[in-house]
């Protein structure tokens, strides 16, 4: 790959006529809410911009992000990989293996210093000098640092790269650490989820390629367009929540009627993601629609918040597993009992003092 093709080159190669290409440009402009004056600008960008090289590295992870990614329907992952980006290194998707693969990685880093996007799936474990995750004979943390050094931007795919996920669950024996705590000097986009929604993944990449800039991020570094609202805010079962109609047991009438899963521990009210709008598998369904509560997989620490089926978080700091209500009621009870005893002693003392005063009089 001596010369990176432009979008236009790829489209022409795939048999798209110039006329169709111009139509595509006007449609894109319309879809983005831009005026007709932008059509030639988009066309020019497509004709002149080289496709952005992407390096996709894998640390401690389960590859569910990749699995999700290749199921994207809008745009198709095929279009993203083959025509929009130049995925130069991805050890699970690429044909090359072993030394060839490593060579491709070094090659891309050398050639496009400061111009490629680094996508990270999984995270580096830092304990024992990173020996819990070895890629190409070296700890993953070293590959990550090397690849990050000359990257234009980093995408943290999934809960692993964004927050740590289950391998970082307490007591985190391998010290699995999210990317933003290892790479401190690069812009990082977090695309959390376990896995993230396919369309969200390809959507983020498409945005970055089309506009040549990072999407607008929230305070935690997640793209606002997909993570600005909770699942709860757009949940189709929300009317039942407001009405106070809940599933009380998994097999009850309310479950069959599709009532709110709040009492069954649904984390929709505390989870920022696009599941209730974009949905999964080409918009077929999402967890709540299939009758199971959200487990909050795109939230920091979702793996350490106690049961997925409890509304109140389990708190382990006291040695025993309790929730806020149990701890609160216990303390209130102890205090109330203390108050009762104190009141009784006070009354006795007062009675004693009165009889003493009488004697003194």
């Amino acid at each position: 790959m001596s010369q990176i093709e432009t979008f236009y080159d790829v489209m022409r190669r795939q048999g798209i006529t110039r006329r169709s290409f111009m139509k595509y440009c006007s449609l894109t402009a319309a879809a983005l809410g831009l005026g007709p004056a932008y059509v030639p600008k988009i066309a020019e960008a497509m004709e002149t911009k080289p496709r952005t090289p992407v390096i996709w590295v894998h640390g401690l992870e389960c590859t569910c992000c990749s699995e999700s990614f290749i199921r994207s329907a809008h745009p198709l992952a095929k279009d993203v990989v083959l025509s929009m980006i130049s995925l130069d290194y991805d050890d699970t998707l690429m044909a090359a293996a072993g030394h060839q693969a490593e060579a491709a990685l070094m090659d891309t880093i050398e050639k496009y210093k400061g111009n490629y996007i680094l996508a990270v799936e999984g995270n580096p474990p830092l304990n024992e000098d990173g020996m819990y995750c070895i890629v190409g004979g070296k700890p993953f943390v070293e590959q990550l640092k090397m690849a990050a050094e000359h990257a234009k931007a980093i995408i943290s795919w999934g809960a692993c790269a964004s927050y740590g996920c289950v391998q970082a669950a307490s007591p985190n024996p391998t010290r699995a650490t999210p990317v933003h705590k290892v790479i401190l000097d690069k812009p990082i986009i977090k695309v959390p989820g376990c896995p993230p929604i396919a369309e969200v993944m390809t959507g983020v990449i498409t945005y970055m390629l089309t506009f040549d800039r990072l999407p607008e991020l929230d305070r935690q570094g997640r793209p606002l367009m997909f993570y600005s609202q909770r699942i709860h805010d757009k949940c189709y079962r929300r009317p039942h929540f407001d009405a106070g109609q809940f599933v009380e047991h998994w097999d009850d009438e309310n479950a069959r009627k599709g009532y709110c899963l709040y009492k069954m521990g649904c984390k929709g009210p505390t989870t920022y993601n696009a599941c209730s709008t974009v949905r999964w598998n080409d918009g077929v369904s999402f967890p709540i629609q299939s009758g199971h509560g959200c487990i909050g997989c795109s939230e920091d620490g979702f793996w350490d918040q106690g049961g997925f089926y409890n509304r109140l978080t389990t708190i382990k700091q006291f040695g025993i597993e309790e929730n806020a209500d149990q701890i609160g009621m216990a303390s209130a009870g102890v205090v109330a009992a203390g108050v009762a005893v104190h009141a009784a002693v006070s009354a006795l003392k007062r009675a004693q003092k009165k009889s003493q005063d009488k004697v003194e009089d």
Partner: protein
Amino acid sequence: MSDATIHTPNPQAPQPMEAARLTGDATAEDIESIRKRTSVYVYEAPVRLWHWINAAAILVLIVTGYFIGSPPPTMMIGEAYQQFVFGYIRFAHFAAAQVLTVGFFFRIYWAFVGNHHAKQMFYLPIFNRRWWSEVFFELRWYLFLEKEPKKYVGHNPLAQTAMFFFITLGLNFMLATGWALYAEGAGQGSLPDMAMGWLLALVGNSQRLHTLHHLGMWAIVVFMIIHIYAAIREDIMSRQSIVSTMISGHRTFKDDRVE
């Protein structure tokens, strides 16, 4: 303890309450008692009003807040569009929270423009050695190690400490976490989000923030139990009025001894 009185004697004064005495309403002992008892105007009307509005708001917040964490059983009044049970519970919570917020800001304002006692809740004189020894004195009184408490015009040092931690810091914590949670529903870029949204980012997970807010509620419940008990107990056993002071504003003393 000497027998000296803090009251300046006024022998020239005529016999008080002549009418009541002659109709048999006031006895000689009553008159003697009146000579000893005095009162100070401590809590101005806005402080008292704030106290009771605050108490009512907190009561509503605790009940509705508990239900938000553990909703009441499902009610089948009608179709989902015909009933709004959980919505009203949450509405009551948010409405009471707004009252609490406005009240708290007003209370801070009143600390500046009100009397000396309106400021007591907002600071602890921790660099004052004597204050510390008075805290321990009051603690000993509660542990039945002192025969008699001292007289105080505003809060005693122990009460001042409790007020500072549970109300000044505690309410601030509940307001901050509560508004951060409200910001989630209000949406990014809304006023609550601009004011408190950063807290959610700091805590990381909204579920964690919920738990902190929930534990805060129980801290307030614990405070309520202690506060009400102490107020009633002191009203009976201390040397000054307590409960009625938050109604009339006047602190009445039961004796005229110096300390």
